[in-house]
Each structure stands twice: as structure tokens, then as C-alpha cells.
């Protein structure tokens, strides 16, 4: 059921997102663990962290905040980064993006 929700979010932003299997093989450069914070904490953590990686690098944001799985894809689009997809792990989300 969760996968359906996440796929809906991906479709909502009309993105060519990756499968969960593909996401799991990504060479992640930076992991932002924002599971301890509520909105807007994860977004701010992502904003700060993206400044520390190079274009082409892949970053994942860990968040237990429901709003973040909508916020980060939208933020990526506006900022010109590439949202790659989201994996629902028990109790939190892994949100993947590539810096442009």
C-alpha cells in the first residue's frame, strides 16, 4: 500500500523515477539523516548538505516526516536537481536525488 502512495508521489511530479531495486544500487555520496526532526528540519538539512557535494553526486535524505516525501521532490524540481525516487523503509523514508 505504501509503495502505491510513493509511486503516486513520483507520478504527481511527472518524474522518470527509478525502481526500488535501482535505487538500492545507487552510489550514494552523502546521506542526510533527518529522522530526528519534523518539517521543515529535513528540508533545511537537505539544503545545507547539497552545498557540500559536487554536481552529479547522489544524496539520500532519511526522514520520518510524511511531508518531506512531497517537499523534497518538489524542492529538487525547483532547484534544478534530479529527484530519483523514494523507498519506504519501516518507519521512515529514503529519498534519493542527484545534484545538478
Amino acid at each position: 500500500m505504501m509503495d502505491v502512495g510513493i509511486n503516486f508521489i513520483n507520478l504527481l511530479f511527472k518524474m522518470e523515477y527509478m525502481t526500488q531495486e535501482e535505487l538500492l544500487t545507487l552510489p550514494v555520496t552523502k546521506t542526510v539523516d533527518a529522522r530526528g526532526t519534523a518539517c521543515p528540519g529535513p528540508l533545511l538539512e537537505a539544503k545545507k548538505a547539497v552545498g557540500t557535494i559536487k554536481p552529479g553526486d547522489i544524496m539520500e535524505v532519511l526522514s520520518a516526516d510524511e511531508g518531506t516525501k512531497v517537499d523534497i521532490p518538489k524542492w529538487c524540481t525547483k532547484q534544478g536537481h534530479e529527484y530519483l525516487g523514494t523507498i519506504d523503509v519501516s518507519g521512515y523514508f529514503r529519498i534519493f536525488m542527484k545534484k545538478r
Partner: protein
Amino acid sequence: MEKKKLCIGLYSGSVDKLTAAGIILSGAVADDMHVDIYVLLQGARAFRKDIGDNPDKLQMAENPAMKAEFLQSLKTLKVKTWVEFFRECKTISEVKIHICGLAGKIWGAEKLDDFIDIADDICGIGAYITATQEADVNLFI
């Protein structure tokens, strides 16, 4: 590309609305917006150095009877205080905080040093009006 500008007229000095302002500000700086905050009447009191982050000295704009519950929920959810939001946002994007001179005087604070250190300057209403005309987005809180 030129950054979008957000102008906030921050009239409220209540802890709930200041927290909302901090959350909105966070979203704006995540989008690289340049933000000018004009602190007006009630807001200027909250920016006084001896008040700022002290919730005992701030009221709630709505549901005043639930202030303790509200503050406890923020703490449980690890939500920053309004001053912490403002301070962090100033490190991420261009955020300028201007205190209305008259508002400061009303609350017994006339010099920049009378306010918490996130305030950038003291200004008149003309500066606020000019900023509203130049902004892409205007909010009044």
C-alpha cells in the same frame, strides 16, 4: 539567475505566529529566496534582547489556554524555537531583519543593541513600503 524576493511584515509578537514565521522562512531559504523581514509593532517586543526565546514572556495569538501543550509538542517534535529558525536561516540565504524604529520605542528599545543579535538594522516605514513594492511575494504575519 536573480533570486526571488520575499518580504514579510512581522506584526505579531506571539510565540505561535513567530514559530509559523520561522517555518515559512525555512521554506523560503531552502528555495534560495532573499528575505526581508520588517518587524512591526508587537513583533518588536519579541525581538527585545530580554524577551526573544523566553516563552514565559510571549503570549499565544490563538488558543492561549493551550500554550503549555503547544510548547511541549514543539519540544517533543524537536522543532526549533522561533529565534533558532531565524538564526539558522540567516546562515543559509540572505535574510535581513529590520526593526521598525517606532515599534522599538513603544517597547522601550531604541538602539540596535537593545534587540537580539539577529536584527540587522532599525528602519522607518518607508523602507518597508519600498521592500513590498520590490518583492515577488509579500506576507503579513
